[in-house]
């Protein structure tokens, strides 16, 4: 067995030696046949068990196969190989017709390759193969799967394979085998199981059960019930997670505003644009990393975070110095002036970077997700953002309660005149505090660039939500902002799963209006300069 795998490894590594060739007719059919012929050719290549078929199939799935002058070629970059003999072809002939693999072929190839990998000595490869096959095994693989179950010793992989085998044995002719398979499937938490079991309990168009055998039907019914019970729990868990995730995003977007509006009382309509500047800074840092440090690309966020904070903070401080400080105590003028500023910032970015959205790529560790329960995948990007929101919140709490700057900010907020009397330079504190709020908006932009669009209008979509959170939470209170963000996030998701996204949005706004009518000061009472 192991020798077989060594030879496969070698074949992949040295691009298969030019000894005996694959069946030319089959390869040609694979490249030029219609959909059905291609599927048949894949099955033939796999059934032949020839390890040299693996790179050929992989190339087809990756779109690296082409045909020139009746010859099937695998072309990767500048290098070309003959698919049948494995010989190097140079120069690569041109023009070539690319062989197009569609989803159907890719699915066939993926499960075929997975079946071959089931016997791999590498545990991770086997696990990946077992996962792949959980959704896409076919009857032809049954003997191979059974063999793999027999050989398997790993506690995670074996049950997965057993479930896959059971799923295939459902269609068997032997009643005892079917019943056993149904009982095995009761332990499954895979959504696909429901797809397998539900036809057994369904009624046809004429009202009769599709499944004639009563025993099978009853067993399927009870297995299905236990699978569905398990799935319902994982759905609830998924819903709770998405609520918390939305809450963390609202929190990030609103935290900066909680300082500039909540503590300082500036109705800052340009808050969204400060978020946008943070996102664009992330984009610029990402491009710098790609151009100069491609090896460390995955770590660009570490550099982007301080850069985004600094960029937004500087812009915020400049705005405060030049415009906003002259308007303290005049909320209406502040509102209009900051709104104008937001339009200027949007147009500036549009002129600099173009009106189209720009591409911010997730670092590898933030792509994909972790499967906590079957069917519930928690995306890494969202987990990281929840953690990040907590970190920013903690950092801000420390800054406000434990540092000299925080002390001054609170003092100026509570009583400006008294603070000035004891020697606090209130004007400078205003600038610093506004810079801090803006910088946090920049951090939010950096996080938002990982899950959404980065474009000149980015800020516009968050400004309303941010104000909603701060007002609902109670102006002047950080704790209120946290509760409001989480509450809105979870409420929104629960309503969305129940009534759809459009109605949920309306319902949330109605709830907020009613709440503010009842309790204009928000969740927590307001203290601070806004009163005067």
């Amino acid at each position, binding site marked *: 067995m192991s020798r077989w795998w060594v030879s496969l490894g070698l074949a992949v590594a040295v691009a298969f030696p030019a000894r005996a060739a694959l069946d030319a007719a089959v390869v040609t059919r694979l490249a030029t046949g219609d959909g059905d012929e291609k599927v048949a050719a894949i099955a033939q290549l796999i059934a032949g068990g020839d390890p040299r078929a693996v790179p050929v199939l992989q190339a087809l799935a990756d779109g690296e196969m082409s045909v020139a002058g009746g010859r099937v070629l695998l072309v990767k970059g500048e290098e070309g190989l003959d698919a049948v003999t494995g010989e190097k072809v140079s120069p690569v002939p041109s023009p070539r017709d690319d062989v197009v693999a569609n989803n159907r072929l890719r699915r066939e190839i993926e499960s075929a390759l997975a079946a071959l990998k089931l016997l791999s000595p590498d545990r991770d490869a086997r696990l990946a193969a077992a996962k792949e096959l959980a959704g896409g095994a076919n009857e032809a693989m049954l003997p191979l799967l059974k063999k793999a179950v027999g050989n398997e010793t790993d506690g995670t992989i074996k049950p997965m394979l057993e479930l896959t085998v059971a799923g295939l044995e459902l269609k068997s002719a032997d009643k005892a085998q079917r019943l056993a398979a149904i009982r095995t499937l009761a332990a499954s938490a895979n959504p696909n199981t429901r797809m397998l079991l539900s036809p057994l309990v369904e009624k046809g168009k004429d009202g009769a059960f599709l499944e004639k055998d009563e025993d099978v039907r009853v067993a399927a019914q009870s297995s299905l019930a236990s699978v569905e019970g398990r799935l319902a729990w994982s759905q609830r868990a998924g819903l709770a997670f998405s609520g918390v995730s939305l809450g963390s995003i609202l929190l990030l977007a609103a935290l900066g505003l909680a300082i500039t509006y909540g503590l300082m009382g500036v109705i800052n309509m340009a808050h969204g644009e400060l978020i946008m500047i943070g996102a664009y800074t992330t984009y610029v840092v990402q491009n710098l990393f790609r151009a100069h440090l491609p090896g460390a690309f995955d770590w660009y966020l570490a550099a982007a975070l301080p850069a985004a904070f600094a960029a937004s903070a500087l812009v915020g401080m400049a705005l405060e110095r030049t415009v906003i400080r002259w308007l303290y105590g005049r909320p209406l003028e502040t509102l209009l002036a900051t709104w104008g500023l937001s339009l200027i910032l949007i147009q500036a970015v549009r002129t600099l970077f173009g009106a189209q959205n720009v591409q911010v790529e997730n670092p590898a560790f933030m792509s994909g997700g972790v499967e906590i329960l079957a069917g519930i995948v928690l995306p890494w990007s969202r987990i990281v953002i929840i953690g990040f929101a907590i970190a920013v919140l903690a950092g801000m709490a420390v800054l406000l309660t434990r540092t000299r700057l925080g002390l001054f900010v609170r003092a100026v907020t509570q009583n400006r005149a008294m603070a000035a009397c004891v020697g606090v330079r209130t004007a400078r504190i205003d600038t610093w505090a506004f810079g801090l709020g803006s910088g946090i908006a920049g951090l939010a932009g950096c996080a938002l660039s990982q899950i959404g*669009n980065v474009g000149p209008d980015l800020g516009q979509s968050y400004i309303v939500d941010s104000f909603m959170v701060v007002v609902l939470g109670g102006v002047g209170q950080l704790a209120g902002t946290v509760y409001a963000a989480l509450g809105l996030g979870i409420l929104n998701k629960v309503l969305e799963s129940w009534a759809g996204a459009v109605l949920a949005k309306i319902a949330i706004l109605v709830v907020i209006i009613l709440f503010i009518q009842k309790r204009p000061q928000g969740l927590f009472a307001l203290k601070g300069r806004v009163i005067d």
Partner: protein
Amino acid sequence: MGAKIEASVVDPASNWPLFAEKARQLITQDKVAVVFGCWTSVSRKSVLPVFEELNGLLFYPVQYEGEELSKNVFYTGAAPNQQAIPAVEYLMSKDGGGAKRFVLLGTDYVYPRTTNKILRAFLKSKGVAEADIMEEYTPFGHSDYQTIIAKIKKFASEGKKTAVVSTINGDSNVPFYKELGNQGLKATDVPVVAFSVGEEELRGVDTKPLVGHLAAWNYFMSLKNPSNDEFTKKWAAYAKAKNLAGHKDKPLTNDPMEATYIGVYMWKQAVEKAKSFDTDKVIAAMAGQTFKAPSGFTAKMDEKNHHLHKPVFIGEVKADGQFNVVWKTPGPVKAKPWSPYIPGNDKKKDEPEMAKKAAAPKK
């Protein structure tokens, strides 16, 4: 004709009332012979009365929901039977995965609502049960698709092969596809076919998790034929010369661009044939115009219904943001602006009412 053509460009900033105002300004003040433009159906609906009142000429280059015919408008984008219906037929075919259950997902406005109404009727005519169709809408600018993807997953696990038909508009597509990739819903399991996602929309997207998802259009930049080579080369040269942000480094062409390109050339041919810029004479001359389009086929303006005969392509997203054409119609397809899947349409005539006065009570 030798007449010099001058272009006036106006930007109504996606502000719908402004569209009507600017259209009026173009026709009455700038005295333009023809207008090429509008994007969303709402913008077209707002300028329509202006063009009809002042007898102007509009070329509309975007795929739309049909259910409209005006003497003053030539529609060079796709009608539902030139995009939506072939796409769903492909999904139901063996090569498309043989889908039996459908999620119709869209942004909440007129194009997705009407398209989904047509698709629902079409699916029913193909024997798909009501319970096997899920229709979902999101508000404009929706950016959190977690619950919707969870719903799709649940729906897909309830039996039978599922496919998603997306009429999500514009920017919302990025968070949608990102979430799709992160939650591990692969194109091989649940394919998503989109009608508003093309080369330009994928520019701002990390396309790796999208590979294999589908789009249906009448043109893809990746098509290989001489007229497309010429088209893309010309565009690249223009973008470079005019220093267009984004396009100067990475010139992209897409379906609405091709539709506009065809429209401009056909209008030129019609003017030459009519030997006049007069609206009515040009409209008469437009009928039956042909143009060797970048799609590789000869597009023809229908003699009567003001729509183009165009081929339909289905493409799968590749890692570089381009599309692999996996299916195409054998030749150009005639547009059916009045979809046969909407009740009452069978009585409507496949040509605009020519008598101007009688045009008012159109529907």
